[in-house]
């Protein structure tokens, strides 16, 4: 998940960009102008040379745009998603993009940033565990579903007749695994010196570069222009 990018912005910049993007989306007077912040987010990804992410998000945005056009102009209807759902996805695309960019940063960069702002070791450890937690839990969940299928717990009859038991069968092993994983990761961190005093460093740490300052300035200018021209909610 955390592909190495030397073009990555500093974590501080990424946080700032998330803040600016959320401000634009949630404070915009006219929600339809949010396409501009989405385009801005695409540029933000381009500057960091994250082509795969760019492709995925362009496809996602194109799809939601197409669905909105089909719904509004041609009365297209779907079984699961309503116009409201599609509109929310369309509006939030920019937030998805910049948040994804933040959470897929190398954990070393994130922990180095937290360490620089003097976050306690417990907080840093917690953040690192969360970073690793989701991809690992995804694999665990897949294994659990396979086991349930193997035991015959995923049959339609079983699901319909015993829905509460099915939820229990999923929740209990997942909770136990959560505890185990948190334990194993904590042990791993402690045995590699997470409790050492002082400021952590990072393989990727470059400090704030000119491009980071430029990004912050660009976003300040963009958000100001966006809110002044488009107005507040």
């Amino acid at each position, binding site marked *: *998940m*955390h*592909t*190495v990018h030397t073009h990555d912005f500093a974590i501080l910049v990424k946080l700032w960009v998330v803040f600016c993007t959320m401000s634009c989306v949630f404070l915009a007077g006219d929600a339809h102008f949010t396409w501009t912040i989405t385009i801005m987010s695409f540029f933000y990804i381009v500057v960091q040379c994250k082509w795969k992410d760019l492709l995925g998000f362009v496809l996602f945005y194109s799809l939601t745009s197409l669905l909105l056009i089909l719904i509004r102009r041609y009365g297209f209807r779907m079984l699961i998603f309503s116009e409201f759902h599609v509109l929310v996805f369309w509006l939030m695309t920019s937030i998805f993009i910049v948040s994804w960019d933040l959470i897929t940063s*190398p*954990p*070393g960069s994130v*922990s*180095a940033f937290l*360490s620089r702002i003097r976050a306690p070791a417990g907080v840093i450890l917690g953040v*690192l565990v969360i*970073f*690793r937690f989701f*991809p*690992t839990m995804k*694999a*665990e969940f897949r*294994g*659990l579903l*396979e*086991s*349930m*299928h*193997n*035991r*015959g*717990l995923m049959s339609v009859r*079983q699901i319909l007749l015993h829905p509460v038991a099915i939820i*229990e*069968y999923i929740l*209990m*092993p997942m909770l*136990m*695994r959560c505890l*185990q*994983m948190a334990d*194993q*990761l*904590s*042990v*791993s*961190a*402690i*045995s*590699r*010196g*997470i*409790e*050492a*005093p*002082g*400021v*952590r*460093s*990072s*393989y*990727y*740490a*470059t400090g704030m570069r000119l491009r980071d300052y430029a990004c912050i300035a660009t976003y300040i200018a963009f958000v100001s222009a966006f809110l002044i021209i488009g107005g507040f909610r």
Partner: protein
Amino acid sequence: MIELRDVSFVYNGGGECIRNIDLRIEDHECVVIMGCSGNGKTTLTRLINGLAPSYYPGKLTGETIINGKPANKMLQWERAQHIGSVFQDPKSQFFSSELRGEIAFACENYGMNTGIVRVRTDAAIHDMKLTHLIETPIDRLSNGEKQKTAIASVNVLKPEVYVFDEPSANLDNEATEHLAQIIKQLKAQGHTLIIAEHRLHYLTDIADRFLYLENGRLTKSFTKEDLLALPEAIRLKMGIRSPQKIDWPELPRAEVANDKIFSLKLENITYSLKKKDILNSVSVAACPGHIVAITGKNGIGKTTLAKIMCGLLKESSGKVFIMGNQVGVKHRWKYAWYSANDTNTQFFTESIVKELLLLSVSTGAIKKHARNVLKEFSLYEYKDRHPFTLSGGEKQRLSIACGLLSNRDIMILDEPTSGLDGRNMQIVSNALKYAAAQGKTIFVITHDVELIAKACDYYLNL
């Protein structure tokens, strides 16, 4: 030099403990700690690397000296600079999803200058021959590569001492040979190595001493010659695995033949994922009572084949016959039981008895059968315990027992003896034979030549 003087330890809340250990490990020495599961091997490694009692609280008495300094005067992070730890399951100790970030983690924790972090990280990657994997996400590495990454992530701090806890548990034979090379290389570089391990054959020519732990006490110490001279009956009684590399047993191949009705027959199975062939025209068949070993390198497609057999994956092409009838992917689970290598996601209820009887109609006959199976698998005394509280070997046995009670004729077991001591391996081996004697057809994915030699009748090498 590491010295333990009359060290005893018991975890808060009880459990496995260590009793009156006197142990002196010289610099540059390679020591292997042997013994059955639950006898204190892991706890002893934790006492050496300091995780007990710093992370695993408990009552510690006696004195531990590291390089002439009392260990209790050292903080855990100070000790971690001198003693690096490599655990059994490397994937559970990774923080990053990419190689450099993972290996750099320890240096970053100590706040080393970024330049030094990069130099050390790149050197560790080079030393462990991982350079070609720099751009590969860690989750996609093979088990052997993950273990190398775990060692590199310790190597980066340049500790004098390495503590390994069952490092070969998830490795195939080739990866184990690579691990042996790395351990040999670390020894040649002058490191002190302490290795808690069940599989011994790859360490026989490397280790200086083999220590035997029994009920938390160090009861015996062997040289290589002593260990090799140990009579097999005594060795098995002690739960020690073979110190010699076991020759591959002469088994017939589990081949498809037209004149027999097999309980399971796979014809020309192919499986492709993202345009890559994982399995290419694989055929195999077995009759009731057969135990077939499925072997091959890590990543060759053994688990994929097993999942196709039991309907968790759909083949790209080929046919699957059960009792002579072609059976579609959606219905295979009704005939074929699958015990995954990772037993942590396999149990759903709060007791072993309930687990065995899950979805069964609880008649007197079934309860009696369950009772007999539990006794046969040495699980009866734990029948009311939560499955998560069992050891690895006990979970494997419970999974096989659930398969037996599931009323399915085919059982597919994925690495049922990984990480098991000699005694547990023997119990699992007996459990497989018991299931086969009940008329089950059994496929065992395994790297364990000892298990193959003891239990299997046929093989399929992928």
